[in-house]
C-alpha cells in the first residue's frame, strides 16, 4: 500500500479549506436572507454542496493511479487544455489565498494586534504557509486532521457553555420565509462548499485515490453540519434581527461566555485556535497555487523557486492590492461568483474535455482492435 493520505485526513483538509473563513461570513450571509429559517438554508446548502462534492469526488477518483491531476488531464485531453486548466486553477488558488490572507489580517488588526504593521503580520503568515507547503500536502492534511479533532471538542464546549443562554423561541415561526429566501440564504454556503474542488489536486496524494469521493462527500457533509450548528447558535443566542448588525457573529457568540469570575475574554482563546485553522486554509490554497504552476510548467526540481516566488507575490499582493477600507459584504457577491466559476465551472469544462477525448480515444482503440 502506498504511504499517503487517509480518507479522514483528506476529509479534514476539505473541512479546513472551507470552514475557517466560512465561519466568519456564513452566519450573517444566511441570516440576512432566511432569518429564523436560516438553518433550513444550511440543510439545503448541504444537500446541494454534497451533490457537487460527489461529482468532484467522482471526477478526482477517476485518476486512480496517483498521477498528478494536471498530468492525468494532459494525458486525457491534451497538453493545451491541461495547460489552460492549470493556469486558471493556479490563478484561482493564488487570488483566493490573497483574499483569505487579507481577511485574516484585517481581523487580526481589529481584534488581536491593532498596532502591529500589516506587512509584518502578512510576512509571518506567508512564511509559515510556505514552510507548511514545503513540507508537503501530507503534513498539512495531517495537521488538518488534528485540528479537526480539536474543533469537535471546542464546538462541544461552546454548546455546553452557551446552552443556558439559548432561546429556542427565536427559531419560530418555522417555515415562514419563502423558498426564494431560503434558496438565497443557501447560496453563500454552497459557494463556500464548492471549495471542496481542491480534491482534484489532493486525491492523487491519497493512499487509495479511488476513495476520493468518500473523503470529499464526508468533508462537505461535516462542513454543512458545522455551518448549521453555527447558524443555529447565533440564531438562538442573538435572534434573527441582531446577527446582521454584528461584524463577526461567530466570535461574538464566544465572547458572551463567562466561566466563573476569574476568566474573561474567552473569545481570545477561541481566536487563537481559529488563527491556526486559517494558517491551514492559506497553506492549502498556497499549495494549490504552487502545485498547479509546478505541474503546468512541468518544473522538475524547482519547486522551492516557485514556492518562494509565489510566497513573495502573495505577500506583495495581500499588502498592496486590497484597499484599507475593504468591506467583505461589498465583495461577497463577486467572491461567490468567482468560487462558482473556478470550483465548479472550470472543473466541469475540464471533465467535459477529458470525457470527449476519452470518447475519441476509446473509439480509436476499438477501431484498432477490429
Amino acid at each position, binding site marked *: 500500500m502506498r504511504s499517503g493520505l487517509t480518507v*479522514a485526513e483528506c476529509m479534514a483538509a476539505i473541512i479546513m479549506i472551507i470552514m475557517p473563513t466560512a465561519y466568519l461570513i456564513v452566519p450573517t450571509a444566511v441570516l440576512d436572507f432566511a432569518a429564523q429559517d436560516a438553518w433550513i438554508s444550511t440543510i439545503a446548502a448541504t444537500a446541494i454542496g454534497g451533490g457537487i462534492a460527489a461529482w468532484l469526488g467522482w471526477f478526482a477518483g477517476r485518476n486512480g493511479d496517483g498521477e498528478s491531476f494536471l498530468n492525468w488531464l494532459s494525458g486525457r485531453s491534451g497538453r493545451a487544455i491541461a495547460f489552460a486548466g492549470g493556469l486558471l486553477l493556479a490563478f484561482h488558488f493564488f487570488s483566493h489565498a490573497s483574499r483569505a490572507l487579507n481577511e485574516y489580517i484585517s481581523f487580526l488588526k481589529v481584534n488581536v494586534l491593532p498596532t502591529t504593521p500589516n506587512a509584518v503580520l502578512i510576512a509571518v503568515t506567508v512564511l*509559515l504557509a510556505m514552510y*507548511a507547503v514545503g*513540507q508537503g500536502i501530507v503534513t498539512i492534511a*495531517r*495537521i488538518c486532521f*488534528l485540528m479537526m479533532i480539536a474543533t469537535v471538542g471546542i464546538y462541544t464546549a461552546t454548546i455546553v457553555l452557551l446552552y443556558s443562554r439559548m432561546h429556542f423561541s427565536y427559531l419560530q415561526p418555522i417555515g415562514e420565509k419563502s423558498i426564494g429566501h431560503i434558496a438565497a440564504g443557501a447560496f453563500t454556503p454552497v459557494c463556500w462548499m464548492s471549495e471542496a474542488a481542491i480534491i482534484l489536486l489532493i486525491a492523487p496524494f491519497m493512499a487509495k485515490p479511488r476513495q476520493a469521493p468518500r473523503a470529499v462527500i464526508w468533508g462537505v457533509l461535516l462542513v454543512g453540519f458545522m455551518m448549521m450548528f453555527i447558524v443555529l447558535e447565533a440564531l438562538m443566542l442573538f435572534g434573527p434581527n441582531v446577527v446582521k448588525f454584528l461584524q463577526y457573529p461567530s466570535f461574538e457568540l464566544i465572547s458572551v461566555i463567562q466561566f466563573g469570575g476569574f476568566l*474573561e*475574554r474567552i473569545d*481570545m482563546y477561541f481566536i487563537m485556535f481559529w488563527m491556526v485553522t486559517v494558517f491551514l486554509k492559506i497553506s492549502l490554497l498556497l499549495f494549490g497555487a504552487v502545485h498547479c504552476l509546478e505541474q503546468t510548467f512541468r518544473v522538475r526540481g524547482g519547486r522551492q523557486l516557485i514556492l518562494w516566488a509565489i510566497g513573495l507575490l502573495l505577500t506583495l499582493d495581500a499588502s498592496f492590492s486590497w484597499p484599507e477600507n475593504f468591506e467583505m459584504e461589498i465583495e461577497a457577491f463577486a467572491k461567490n461568483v468567482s468560487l462558482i466559476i473556478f470550483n465548479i465551472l472550470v472543473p466541469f469544462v475540464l471533465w467535459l474535455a477529458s470525457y470527449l477525448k476519452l470518447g475519441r480515444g476509446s473509439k480509436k482503440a476499438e477501431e484498432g482492435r477490429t
Partner: protein
Amino acid sequence: MRGLGIRLPFLKRRDHSGRRNGGGGNGGGRGPGGPSLSRQLQANLNAIRRELGDSSDLTIRLIRDDSGRVLAAVVYIDGIVIFDTINQMLLSPIMERVHELSSGRSSLSAADMRALLEAGTIQLGRVRETYDLSHLIEELLTGSTIILSDGSSVAFAAATRGGEKRSVDEPSSQTVARGPKEGFTEDVQTNISLIRRRIKSPLIRVENRLLGKHTKTVTSVVYMKGIAREEVVEEIRRRLSRIEVDSILESGYVEEFIQDEVWTPFPTIQNSERPDAIAAGILEGQVAIVVDGSPFVLLAPVTFVKFFQSSEDYYQRFDIATFLRVIRMVSFFISMLLPSLYIAITTFHQEMLPTPLLISLAAQREGVPFPALIEAMLMEVTFEVLREAGVRMPRIIGPAISIVGALVLGQAAVQAGLVSAAMIIVVSFTAIANFVIPALNMAIAARLIRFAMMLLAATLGLFGIMSGVMILLIHLVSLKSFGVPYMTPLAPLKISNLKDVLVRAPWWLMKTRPSVISTEDRVRQAPGLKPGPPKDRGERGS
C-alpha cells in the same frame, strides 16, 4: 576425558575480513590484509611492542620448556582483563600441557598448539584464531589474551575481558516509586545480560560491531527476530556501518550519527538507563543499541508519545497511570509556553485578565524597570545557570546552592525591584513542570523551545505564540524516526494504537503491539483476559 582429537564448539575460526557476527563495522579503520604474523615468536612480540609503543601495561608472559627455551607467549594488557581467569584458566593449564607436548621437541607447531587448545586446555568460553597483526592488536585492546607460539603464524585470542567496572545499581535518572531498581552499567556485556534476563526468548538477536578507530567501542544491536521490522533493523545496520570516527565514548555519539533529522530540537531516538524500559521497547518491536562505556541504551524507532511514557505507567493501575500521563503532557505544554503566555498577555492582551488580577500584576510590576521579556529572560537564564551549577557542583553543596538560588536570590531580586513576584512564580512553576517530563532529552527540547517562544510572544503576542506552535506542529508531523512518522498514532491516526497514548488502557485491553513499530506478529496476549470475580456456583446451583 581429554584427547587431542576432540573438537570443541567454542573454538571459532576468525573471519579474515575483520567482521564479526555479521557486523559491518570499520573495525577501527584497519581493513583486511594487514601484515601477517610471523612464524618467529620473537618477531611477533617485537611487532606487538612496536604497535603498542612498548606500553607499561602491556604484559608478556613467556612459556618455557624445562630447558628454558621459549615455546610460547601469553600477551595481555593489564587492567582490562580478568587476571585470575588468565592465571587459572589459561596460564596454568597451558604450562602444564606445553611441558607434556614439547618434551623432546624444539618447537610447537600451529597444529600442536591448536590441538592443545582444542583438547580443552584453555577452559574459557571463547577462543579465536588470529592470522594478522592488526586483528591481534584489536583483540588485545578489547581485553582478549593472546597466545602465540614459536614456529606458528597463528595466534589465539582468548576472551578474558574484564577489569574494574561499576556494579548494577539504581538508575540515577528515570527513577520510579514502583518497579525494578536495576540500571544499566558501563559494560556492554552486563547490559545485554540485563536485557536477556528479562526476555528469555530464542528470538532475541544480538549483533556486535566495533566503532571508533581508536576506541574500538563494542556496539551491540539487540532486537527480536520476527517482531522488529526487518527494514528498520537493516536501516540501523546501514547507518551504524556508515560511522567512521576515531572515538565513540558514549551512546550519545552514536545517536547523533544515526538520527533522522539534524535540525530539530526533538529527539528521534529514545534512551534509557532502565533494562525494563529497554526490554519493553524490544518486545514492542523497537531495536536497542547498546554502546560499551555508556549506561544509556538507545531505542529506535520512536514516536513523540513514547517520551511521555514512564516504566512506572505499566506497574501502576491504569487509572493512576493515565492521570499521571495527562499531568506530564500538560506539564510539557506549561514548560514550553507558560512564560511566553505571561509575556504575551501582560504586554499585548491585558484585556484577557480579570480586573483584580490585572491591578495586582500592574502593582507588582510598578517598580520593575524592565519590560516583561527582559524580566522573564533574566529569571530564566538565572534558573538555567542554577540548574547547570546544581548538576556540576559536588553533591554536598547542592542544598546550599538551592537555598541561595531559590530563596535568597529570588527574594532579593523581588525586593530590589528587578523582577516581579508574579514572574518568580511563573518561572518556578515552569521549571518544576519541566522536571515532570520523564525523558531528559524531551525536557531539554522544551527548555530550548521556551526561549524561542518568549521572543515570539514579546514581538507578536498571541499571534506570535500561535505561529510558533504552528511551526512546531508542522515540524513534528513531518518528522520521522527510522521511517516511522514521529506523531503516530495521532498523525497519521492509528486508532488501534491509541490505547497507550494519553490514556494507558488496562493491560487486558492492550492485546496487540503498536502496528507502526512491530511486524505482522502483533498479538501479545490471549483474548478474554479481562479479570472479574468468580461466579458463585452455590447460588447458581440452588
